[in-house]
């Protein structure tokens, strides 16, 4: 479904991704793990079209993504839930969700979808008219995911969803991700929290300094010493 080959990205002179390749199939949860500045966010931002790549191919659903804009990619069903819960703070929860459906042509069905999101995240229903900026970090993260789902994506890119969240919320997030995958949504999860990420993913790629150093089955990797070594350098 998503096929990335030999992707190179740099910020100015700083090479951030050094020719990485990976793939993702329908209904699969794949995680990119690695320490800070390994290039996880950059990978997702490049996939979403926020960052231009130097070279490499991004094939999604058979089409080439490299040359089209972020807005077009959303239309193709590829949506990014950015790092740091970038919701619209001065809009209500309901308006935030509406924005998620901005590009859709079937705007009559939008309210039904919002209802669906509300049943998935009951907390959001309670806060429907509240200003999004006044909610807690966990609620904002739920809103950001809900807003991403409003675009009816085929593939959702999740960037560091657990950042700064309490353990109990992280657990809930893991369950939500699994449930979404069961419904057929493909998810690419970039995470620093390796235990959480490996716990809910099918497969994983380990990123370090812009290179994929290991990859494979998530269960197997969670036991592997190289994961620990990569984080702690021991």
């Amino acid at each position, binding site marked *: 479904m998503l096929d990335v080959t030999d992707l190179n990205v740099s910020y100015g002179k700083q090479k951030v991704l050094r020719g990485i390749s990976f793939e993702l199939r329908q209904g699969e949860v794949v995680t990119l793990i690695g320490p800070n500045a390994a290039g996880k966010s950059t990978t997702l931002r490049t996939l979403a079209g*926020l960052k231009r790549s130097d070279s490499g191919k991004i094939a999604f659903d058979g089409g080439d993504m490299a040359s089209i804009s972020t807005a077009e990619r959303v239309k193709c069903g590829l*949506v990014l839930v950015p790092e740091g819960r970038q919701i619209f*703070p001065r809009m209500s929860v309901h308006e935030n969700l509406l924005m998620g459906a901005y*590009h859709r042509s079937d705007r009559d069905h939008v309210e039904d979808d919002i209802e669906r999101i509300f049943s998935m995240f009951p907390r959001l229903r309670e806060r429907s008219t509240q200003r999004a900026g006044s909610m807690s970090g966990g609620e904002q993260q739920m809103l950001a995911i809900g807003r991403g789902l409003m*675009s009816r994506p085929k593939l959702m890119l999740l960037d560091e969803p657990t950042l700064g969240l309490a353990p109990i919320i992280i657990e809930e997030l893991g369950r939500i991700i699994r449930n979404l995958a069961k419904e057929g949504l493909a998810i690419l999860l970039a995470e620093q929290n390796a235990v959480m990420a490996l716990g809910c993913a099918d497969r994983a790629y380990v990123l370090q300094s812009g290179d994929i150093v290991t990859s494979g089955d998530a269960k197997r990797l969670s036991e592997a010493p190289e994961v620990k070594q990569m984080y702690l350098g021991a």
Partner: protein
Amino acid sequence: MSQLIIGQMLNGVIVGSLYGIIALGVTLTFGLTGIVNFALGAFMMLGAYTTWYFYDVLGLPYALAVLGAVCAVSVVGYVSDRALFQFTRGNLVNGLLVSIGMISVFEALVLAAFTTTPKDLTYVLPGALNIAGIILPKIKIVVCVVFLAVIFGTYLALTRTWLGRAAFSYAQNPEAAALMGVHTGRLQTIVVVYSTALAGLGGGLYASMYSIEPTIGSGYILKAVEAAILAGVGSVIGALGGGIILGISENIGSVFLPSAFRDAYGLVFLIAILLVRPGGLFGDRP
């Protein structure tokens, strides 16, 4: 005395709503493109002259003349965005200088075409209302109501329509808006052009109340920028509030203090506000 003050306050509201409508354009353009478009003053002046031309020279009905002027100014706004402003997005100083350069071009061209002699429109709506001893020309009331309606309409559009929400969300977080599938370049152009249309409308209605000269825009854009900063850049209703506060403070100020300095009151007020609350009165930025 109290009648005088109430009268001055009402006049302040009327002038303030004119500041407000241009300040709204300043605020919208700044929120979406990161530049302060001083040329909006020139667009206002263009709107006034076009209205005068359509109404007094070509003899169109006034409403139609204003509409035509708004359309004409929007076209100029579109061309200037494509040709100039789109290259200065996000660069405040360059945007400022380009828009200032445009003012001199527009003013000079109008000056060359119509000379400095002030133009007065034939009365659009004569007569005045006398409310408890306070005399208000009917036209001023109509103009003020139109401005208020347009500002509130803009506010509603920003919160209730898809395009409006897109603009509002873009102003809060451009990147997240792009991730929702908003075509950001197109949206910016729309807002820049809409702002020039607002200025054109402001000019068209201004022409029905006061005589017009090529330099009217410069004074009003300064007031509008003051109003926008006073309110806190980015707030729609704040732009109106800032305009009215400015209008009232000038009018009341000139009751008690020498009226020759009326332009200075707003400036001193502005400096004080900026120093105490850099985000403006209604702004929530630090």
